[in-house]
C-alpha cells in the first residue's frame, strides 16, 4: 500500500470528499499536477476541469469548477465552487446550459457578460465531457 495523505475536497454546497488518498491528479492554471504524500507546500488555483484521485488503489474521477488547492506534505485541501462525480452530473441540464451559453455567445454582449457566458459554457462542456468519459 502506498503512502497516503489526508485529502479534503470541499464544495460550496457540501463536503465532497474527506479521507486518505494515495495520489491526486488535478488541472491547475498552467497544466496538470500530480500530488502524492510528501509533496512540497504548494498553493495554486484551479480552473474548471477534471480531477482524479486514488483511494485504495482505485481511481475516482470528478468534475470540478473553479477553486484553489493548498498542499501540505501530509495533507491537501481543495476548495471548489462545485464538485461532482460523473454519475451525479445531470446531462440534460448540462446540455441545456451549454445550448443557452452558446446561444448567448452569438448575441452582442459586454465584455463582462462575454466572460461570464464563456465560463458558463466551459462548465457545461466540462460536465458533459466528464460524464461521457467516465459514466456509461
Amino acid at each position, binding site marked *: 500500500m502506498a503512502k497516503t495523505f489526508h485529502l479534503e475536497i*470541499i464544495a*460550496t454546497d457540501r*463536503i465532497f470528499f474527506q479521507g486518505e488518498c494515495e495520489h491526486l491528479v488535478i488541472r491547475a492554471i*498552467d497544466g496538470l499536477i500530480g500530488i502524492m504524500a510528501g509533496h512540497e*507546500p*504548494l498553493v*495554486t488555483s484551479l480552473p474548471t476541469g477534471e480531477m482524479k484521485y486514488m483511494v485504495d488503489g482505485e481511481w475516482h474521477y470528478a468534475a470540478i469548477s473553479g477553486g*484553489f488547492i493548498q498542499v501540505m506534505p501530509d495533507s491537501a485541501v481543495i476548495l471548489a465552487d462545485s464538485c461532482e462525480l460523473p454519475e451525479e452530473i445531470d446531462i440534460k441540464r448540462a446540455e441545456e446550459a451549454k445550448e443557452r451559453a452558446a446561444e448567448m455567445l452569438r448575441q452582442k454582449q459586454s465584455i463582462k457578460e462575454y466572460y461570464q457566458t464563456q465560463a458558463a459554457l466551459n462548465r457545461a462542456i466540462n460536465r458533459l465531457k466528464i460524464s461521457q468519459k467516465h459514466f456509461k
Partner: protein
Amino acid sequence: MPNMREIRERIASIQQILKITNAMYLMSSSKLKKARKALDSTEPYFYKLQETINSVLEHTPHTRQTYFDRRDDIPVEKRKKGYIVITADKGLCGSYNHNVLKFTEQELEKAPDLSNCYLFVLGQVGRQYFTKRINNSQKAFVDGEFLYTTQNPTVYRAMEIAQLVLGKFEKKELDEVYLIYTDMVNSSVQENKMVQLLPFSRRHFGKSADGTMKKLPKASFIPSPEEVMADLIPNYAKGIIYGAMVESFCCEQQSRMTAMDAATTSAKDMIKELSLLYNRARQAAITQEITEVVSGAGSLEE
C-alpha cells in the same frame, strides 16, 4: 359596556391578521428548514475557506498584488469606503432588519466623511432605508444599480457581487470594502458582524493564537504568487459573500418565524379576551331585554 358590533368587527379583523401571521409562520418555517440545510452544507466551506486562506497567507511571500495594496498614501478622510450590507427583502421579521441597519449606521458614524461612503445594499428594506436617509442629513451614497435579492442565495449571485466590488477596487473607486451581515450563533442568538474584504491585509492573518509570528516555510506558488493571488482573492471574496448571504438568509427566516409565532400567539390571546368581552356584552344585552319585557308586561297589568 362596549358596543357588541364593534367587538365583533374587531374579532373578525384580528382573525384576518391571525390567518396572515399564521400563514407567514408556516411559510417561514418551511423556508427556514431549507435555509438551514443550505447553511449546514455551506458552513464547512465557509469556515474551511477562512482557515485555508489564513494558512495560505502565512506561507505567502510579500507580494505587490493589487488586492494587498493598502493605499497608505490616501489620507483617512479621503478614503472611499464601500460597505456591502445584507438586509431582508421584506419586513415583518422582528428586529432582524433593525439590528442590521443600526449596526451599519454605527459603522457609518465612525467614518470621517459620509460622502466617501458607498453602500451596496442587498435586500429591499435596507435599500429603501438608506435611500431615504440620503435626503435627510446623511449623505452616504447608495448604489442604485446594485439590485440583488437576498432570497435563496446562489454562488453566481455572490460571484457577480464580488466581481463588482473587486472591479471598483481595482479602478480605485473604492479603497476599502467591508461586508456587514448577520451571523447565526445558534438558533436563538444572532449577531451582526463586519468583515473587511479589501484590501487584503495580512495583519488580520499571519499571527497564531499566542500572538507570535509563526515561522513557516514559504509555500511555492504555481505559476507565481501574484497570479495565484489574482485568482484566489476573487474566489475568497465570492466564498465569503456567499457564506454571509446564506447565514443572513437563515437568520432572516429564523427571526421571521419567531416574530410570526409571537404575533399568532398574541392574536389568539386577544381573540380570547375579546370573545369573553363579547359574550359578556351579549349576556348583558339579553338581560336588559328581559328586564325590559318583564317591566313592560308589569306595567301593562297595572
